[in-house]
């Protein structure tokens, strides 16, 4: 009985895993083979993303394909590499041994990529070698004999061009051939006996590759020149960092200017929905929950989708083109001064959109301490959920004048808030590395892949994935928070003859007023105290909460306009600055805390993060308030 017939009889789908070094083209291959039929989930317990997708082979087998994190060796160095190892060795609970492994290698870099294949071959399991990027290899005049290689290795070898349907035909055919063979059932012993290769074992793999290559490589291609030329500028000690700064500037500029129009559309759509619901539903608690609680709240969050997607568009482009590792290279020295790894640059950059993907991206950092520090400072990067509060307060309190020839004061304050977060993060990282999280550092050791044109399919599928994750978050955590909030700020109802807005008498009002004495030293009045209660769960709801506190109604746009005027009249400048300082640091996002718990597998670090951020926020707000008062900002 063949593996194919086993599956045809419905026992289980055949599973094939894509394994290979980073940047060998696994994800591109995966996208071409599965198209849109893919889903991302998390491995239980470790939350490394598990990307799987379905495909049908020409003969008609249904195969479940797994895209595994890249790794140079089965000896895993980081949490995501550990997943690759565990899946390949069948140690991943609920996964079982894959029926076959496709080892994806970069044909232009076979000398370095074949070692992983040799390691995989040792396991004695069904294995196919895919020589990917064959188009690039050919362009450079490189010629490889798949027959010779196949004969030497004793496994099927195919060439692929991952982003073309025609470029994966051979691979599909080979998968069919493999599935139609009777499984040998071998390999179980070899897999159980697997141990991490010693340095000398790795040297032996090197020698084996050196022996194999001359017989398989018919003609060496010319080395790639474009990457060298580009790097001469992009990695130049002076020009390199300047270009990086310019790129980042362009990116944030785009996030704000490009997102404006789609944000207006979403705003308009939500306002329309609110009006329609208001007109259609009768006055009732349900209506209040739907209109004030859910639609207004969800609208306040969905509105960030364009900004998040634009930021991720840039990140995906930078990643797919190969520039991201250069950015890590350029930032490494600066970051190592505070005990961070250059690799941490990538997660921290994502955190400007939202801390959660940033925290998840920290998985690529091998050293547990490096990774923990990165996770702990990720929330200090100004995520887009802070923007509505920043924008509101800046509009209300900072005059729209220009300073030093053309630079707007408002923009300058905004920049200052971003910078405060970054500087704060660096200081926190440095302090943590000198105190709680002292000790071993991870070597940098990172491949700088050759530059490539980003593949549009990769980028679009990546964006789609981000959008789905974001919307799922809204559908789960944010929705539940909003319902609880609505409940807290609606009940109990105000007494007859109430003089204050209804929320004053509600549970939220009670909590806020109880907190007031604690917040008075940093200049917060009871209105802010109340708005902070919902803001603690998800900071983006705070503006809506302030609207409720000041008893303003209408759709979002008009509330914000009215709030700007109201706040400018009723708060002092010192209070406004203090609240801004608070917002730079305060841990106001349940989802982030939940992500930290998941990623570190303990509540300990989530709690630690909450406490340290809260303390920082309080101190920053206190100092800001007192200094502003002393300077006459009362």
């Amino acid at each position, binding site marked *: 009985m063949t593996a194919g017939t086993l599956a045809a009889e419905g026992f289980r789908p055949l599973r094939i895993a894509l394994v290979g070094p980073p940047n060998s083209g696994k994800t591109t291959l995966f996208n071409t083979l599965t198209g849109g039929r893919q889903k991302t989930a998390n491995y239980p317990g470790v939350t490394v993303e598990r990307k799987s997708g379905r495909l049908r082979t020409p003969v008609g087998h249904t195969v479940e394909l797994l895209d595994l994190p890249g790794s140079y060796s089965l000896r895993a160095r980081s949490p995501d590499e550990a997943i690759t190892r565990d899946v390949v060795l069948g140690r991943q609970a609920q996964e079982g041994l894959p029926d076959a492994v496709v080892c994806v290698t970069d044909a232009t870099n076979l000398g370095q990529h074949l070692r992983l294949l040799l390691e995989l071959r040792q396991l004695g399991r069904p294995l196919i070698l895919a020589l990917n990027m064959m188009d690039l290899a050919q362009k450079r005049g490189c010629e490889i004999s798949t027959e010779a290689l196949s004969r030497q290795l004793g496994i099927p070898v195919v060439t692929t061009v991952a982003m073309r349907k025609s470029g994966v035909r051979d691979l599909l055919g080979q998968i069919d051939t493999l599935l139609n063979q009777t499984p040998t059932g071998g390999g179980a012993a070899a897999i159980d006996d697997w141990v991490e290769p010693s340095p000398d074992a790795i040297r032996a793999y090197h020698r084996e590759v050196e022996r194999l290559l001359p017989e398989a490589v018919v003609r060496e291609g010319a080395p790639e020149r474009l990457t060298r030329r580009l*790097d001469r500028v992009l990695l130049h*000690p002076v020009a390199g960092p300047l270009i990086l700064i310019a790129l980042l500037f362009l990116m944030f500029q785009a996030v704000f200017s490009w997102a404006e129009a789609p944000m207006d559309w979403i705003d308009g759509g939500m306002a329309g929905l609110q009006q329609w619901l208001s007109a259609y539903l009768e006055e009732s608690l349900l209506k209040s929950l739907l209109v004030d609680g859910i639609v207004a709240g969800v609208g306040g969050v969905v509105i960030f989708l364009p900004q998040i997607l634009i930021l991720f568009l840039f990140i995906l482009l930078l990643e797919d083109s190969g520039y991201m590792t250069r950015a890590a290279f350029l930032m490494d020295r600066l970051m190592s001064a505070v005990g961070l790894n250059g690799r941490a640059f990538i997660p921290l950059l994502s955190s400007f959109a939202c801390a959660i993907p940033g925290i998840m991206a920290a998985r690529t950092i091998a050293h547990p301490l490096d990774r923990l520090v990165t996770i702990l400072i990720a929330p200090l990067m100004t995520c887009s959920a802070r923007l509505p509060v920043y924008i509101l307060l800046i509009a209300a309190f900072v005059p729209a004048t220009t300073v030093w020839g053309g630079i707007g004061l408002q923009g300058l304050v905004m920049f200052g808030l971003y910078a405060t977060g970054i500087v704060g993060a660096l200081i926190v990282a440095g302090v943590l590395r000198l105190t709680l999280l002292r000790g071993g550092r991870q070597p940098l050791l990172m491949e700088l892949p050759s530059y490539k044109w980003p593949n549009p399919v990769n980028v679009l599928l990546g964006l789609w994935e981000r959008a789905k994750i974001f919307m799922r978050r809204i559908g789960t955590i944010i929705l539940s928070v909003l319902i609880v909030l609505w409940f807290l700020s609606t009940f109990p109802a105000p007494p007859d003859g109430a003089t204050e807005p209804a929320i004053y008498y509600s549970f939220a009002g009670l909590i806020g007023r109880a907190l007031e004495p604690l917040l008075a030293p940093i200049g917060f009045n009871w209105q802010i105290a109340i708005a902070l209660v919902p803001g603690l769960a998800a900071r983006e709801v705070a503006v809506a909460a302030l609207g409720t506190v000041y008893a303003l109604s209408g759709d979002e746009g008009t509330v914000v306009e009215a709030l700007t005027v109201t706040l400018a009249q009723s708060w002092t400048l010192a209070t406004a600055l203090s609240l801004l300082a608070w917002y730079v640091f305060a841990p106001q996002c349940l989802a982030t805390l939940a992500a930290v718990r998941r990623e570190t597998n303990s509540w300990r670090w989530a709690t630690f993060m909450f406490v340290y951020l809260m303390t920082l926020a309080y101190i920053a707000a206190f100092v800001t308030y007192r200094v502003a008062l002393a300077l006459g900002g009362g």
Partner: protein
Amino acid sequence: MSGHGEQERQLFELGRLVKAGLTQPLSLMRRGGVGRILAVRSSDGDREVERGLLEMGFVEGACVEVLHYGLLGRDPLAVRINQTMTVALRRGEANAVLVGPLLDQTADARSSASQEGRPL
């Protein structure tokens, strides 16, 4: 697999180069410098750095070329291995890699290697 005699010969060769002052750690090579790796050794107990270096292609006999240095403290370095793969690493790790001259020391082999000639 290199036999025992081969290993001894290599050790002898290494000693000769060290004595002649022709070796230096990768971390001290100047930008644009080329050479061949003579030894990869790390001082840490579990030889983690050594394994990491080996896995990224830094192995005895490989040809290296220092392409770039970072701005501050000339750290990190970007090194091209065997004309195909570029790897970034810090000076700390680069200290564990001992580099000597390219073995085929004729002047034109050296210059052709540094001009992106045939991979070695």
